[in-house]
């Protein structure tokens, strides 16, 4: 445990000084700042930020995570020649990577909000949701990135797979859902769609956001299954468990590969 903390703290120190974390933070700051200064309508700003979140955070986490492992391959090999357990090293690298990304995210989104904190005075809960979804998505897609790059020796292939995973989860999956909904329009699909959404972490976080923002529209959905489910205690619990599952599963699979891997 102690060793894990040490590894992650040194990795964190390394990553936090890198240019791309800086650029990520600046990019988010520019987006947030321009959104705020353009509209000054807190509800619209926050929903747009949440939308951008759902797109940018997974993409950045995937790309940064994949490239990070490839770039640090020799460093990892060297560290493995030290008396360090593989799982400790793996988790240390992971924590050392995602904490700076999370920090960059919190600063990039948080500072512009703090700057205009007055107009957001009634939106504490939504800002909390905004920050939480960003953190959760980083944790999930950082793990996915680790799994992808551990499983593929070729860095171009790994990067390609990362981008395909992102495209699939953020666009194609929803396209497939729409096709399913149109094809089986005559059947009650509420439960099935709730179920299908659980299996895409981006959709799942999106629904939690939508419940918060577009509840009036979702309530127009006959049966109000979604509000009752995702807005109720059981639904929140299940959603949280699913997100936890998505945070752990890719990381666990990556760890298994990492432990068995010949470097």
């Amino acid at each position, binding site marked *: 445990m102690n060793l894990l903390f040490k590894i992650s703290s*040194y990795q964190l120190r*390394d990553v936090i000084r890198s240019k791309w974390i800086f650029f990520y933070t600046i990019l988010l700051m520019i987006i947030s700042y321009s959104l705020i200064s353009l509209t000054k309508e807190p509800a619209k700003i926050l929903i747009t930020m949440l939308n951008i979140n759902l797109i940018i955070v997974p993409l950045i986490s995937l790309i940064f995570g994949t490239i990070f492992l490839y770039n640090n*391959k020799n460093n990892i090999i060297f*560290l493995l020649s030290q*008396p360090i357990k593989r799982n400790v090293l793996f988790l240390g690298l992971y924590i050392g990577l995602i904490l700076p990304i999370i920090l960059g995210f919190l600063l990039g989104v948080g500072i512009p909000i703090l700057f205009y904190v007055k107009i957001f005075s009634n939106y504490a809960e939504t800002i909390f949701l905004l920050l939480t979804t960003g953190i959760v998505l980083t944790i999930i897609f950082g793990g996915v990135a680790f799994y992808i790059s551990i499983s593929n020796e070729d860095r171009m292939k790994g990067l390609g797979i990362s981008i395909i995973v992102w495209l699939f989860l953020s666009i194609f999956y929803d396209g497939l859902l729409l096709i399913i909904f149109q094809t089986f329009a005559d059947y009650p699909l509420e439960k099935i769609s709730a179920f299908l959404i659980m299996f895409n972490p981006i959709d799942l976080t999106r629904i939690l956001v939508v419940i918060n923002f577009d509840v009036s529209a979702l309530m127009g959905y006959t049966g109000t299954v979604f509000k009752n489910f995702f807005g109720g205690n059981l639904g929140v619990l299940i959603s949280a468990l699913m997100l936890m599952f998505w945070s752990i599963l890719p990381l666990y699979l990556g760890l298994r590969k990492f432990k*068995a891997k*010949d470097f």
Partner: protein
Amino acid sequence: MIKVTNLNKSFGSLEVLKKIDLEFVPGQITYIVGPNGSGKSTLIKIILGLVKSDSGDVWVGDYMLNGDCHYRDKIGYMPQSASFPENLTVTEVFKMLKDLRNNKDNLDESLIKELNLDKELNKRLGNLSGGTKQKVSAAITFLFNPSILILDEPTAGLDPVSSSILKDKIKKEKENGRTIILTSHILSELEELADNVVFILEGSIKFSGKINHLIEKTSSLNLERAMAALMNGQLI
């Protein structure tokens, strides 16, 4: 002391190591040589625990490798091309390793001074030249007074002055009774330092023993020709 018995490893259908039996003795320098792809780096990586063998045993001291990592406390490893976190300073990298090994006393920091690293201590690794990185790597290798030294082409990339400082250091550690394994393509270095030579070709050991023994056996004029003879498949 390191002992390897009946070691086999293949990557897919490619047999990289076949029935390797070897012993590395304290107070002696053993060079592992062979053409690229012969399996020598795989052998080193198995000893370091980076690659897992298919069968066979590796003993480091009186510990048999089984996946536990503590034996690497005794090993100083200098990789062929060193790589450390780019955005840490040299001091931080030293500090990191001391932290990770949880070893802050009984340190051998002589190489830091001898290789003139004092001036580079506050620079980030990413801003150092390849040669300087190699020096940092060398200093780290000897830092913890390891009883076993594994050096993969240590002098490649070093300037002649640093190279000779490093060679002196290796000799000195041999006097201190360390078990030392080296790989190199530089035959002059080999002639200067090696007590033993292990020659690996296509995953099998073709020769293992003293240098003069090797020259005698191949009836060659010198080491270079002896090597050439081995590579041409001359059996001993």
